[in-house]
């Protein structure tokens, strides 16, 4: 059985560590691919650059997308993901520290499936990740 892959797009290494820790705490042992910004995320999804030669028919079960990243930010990456036939149905959860209305609205406008604010309290964050994992990896049926 193919393992369900989680694509984590996050530029802050601390946040990467904390998210991985939260996933582990929730017993989510799926393979996590980490992309450090929008550019790397697209390279992974489309099998270019760093990921040239990757079988692009294998797509993640869900992508966790940060918004503010260098080179290419979350919204732009999401736009590209939605534009391409191969990835336009990919479930994308925006996971961000931003509490600004306009970020939330922009995310949904560009095609996010979900928008989650990262709480400062790690326990709350772990709880959120737990629920995310339960929903997107278990309950939800990918396209």
């Amino acid at each position: 059985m193919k393992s369900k892959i989680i694509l984590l797009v996050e530029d802050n290494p601390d946040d990467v560590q904390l998210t991985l820790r939260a996933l582990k705490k929730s017993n989510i042992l799926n393979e996590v691919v980490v992309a450090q910004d929008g550019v790397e995320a697209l390279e992974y999804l489309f099998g270019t650059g760093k990921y040239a030669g990757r079988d692009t028919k294998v797509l993640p079960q869900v992508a966790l997308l940060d918004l503010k990243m260098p080179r290419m930010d979350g919204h732009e990456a999401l736009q590209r993901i939605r534009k391409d036939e191969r990835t336009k149905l990919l479930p994308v959860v925006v996971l961000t520290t931003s509490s600004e209305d306009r970020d939330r609205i922009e995310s949904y406008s560009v095609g996010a499936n979900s928008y989650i604010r990262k709480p400062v309290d790690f326990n709350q964050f772990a709880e959120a990740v737990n629920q995310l994992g339960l929903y997107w990896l278990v309950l939800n049926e990918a396209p």
Partner: protein
Amino acid sequence: MLLIGSLVAVAITRAVAGPILSLQKGAEAIAAGDLSHRVGTLAKDEVGRLSRAFDAMTDAIDRRVRERTSELENAVAERKKAEEKIQKLNQELEARVIERTALLEAANRELEAFAYSVSHDLRSPLRSIEGFSLALFEDYVDRLDDTGKSYLDRVRNATMRMGRLIDDLLKLSRVTRSEMVREKVDLSVIGKDVAGRLAESHPERSAEFVIVDGLISYGDARLLTVALENLFSNAWKFSEKAPRSVIEFGVLHRENIEVFYVKDNGVGFDMAYAGKLFSPFQRLHRIEEFTGTGIGLATVKRIINRHGGRVWIESEVNKGTTVYFTLG
């Protein structure tokens, strides 16, 4: 004899009637507007003198009229100049207002950008501190003595507190940034909504809300809701220790002005320290006594100020607190 007499009579008549006729014609001409008319005479008699006097009078009138006309023309020209000056000043004023508005809008946008970056940039390292101090605690708990554990506890509490401070600062800045809409508002309805939500989110306690009906005023419904939320939640919080919490919201009239008030029967405070209450982050109680970041009243003050109103507070230790406000 009679013939000479009648000839003399005719001559006299002619000598008098002629000039008098001229005078009459002259008067008529002048009355019709011809001020250049002069009767002219060389006669040296009384009628001649009359005619010359008449002409002198006409000269004087003519001169006066010219003078007055020129004075009037000057006055009109001056007034026209003054009007043009006013127009020019108005245009300059408008240009200046446009410039100032643009500067203000730019300043507001800068403030927005600043608040936005605070929201994002400060929280990131905060999350790291929080997350990794918890990880340290969890993964190395057996290697930590009680003091070590308490240190980590303090670190985590401080990060939580900082997170709340950042959130509150953001809320405060949003109050200043947002557009204000002035319309008729029913403060009683808003108050009841706020009271309801407060009770719902704190089911472990109950407080009696006494809200007068028909508190109508003019202002921004959204901002006033935030103000009442802050006032009610303060009243709620500080009346926690009272056996029966009663929170009143009503209006009284002082010198023809409507003064709204939110009153609680809670712990109150010493008025001697009231001076700084409306500054951000000012608190009169220790954290162990009552939670909170001290931003509530500062927010209320900003909202009331934006409405052109006043807000003030009266209290007595253990007797409760009343916050009064007017809406411009």
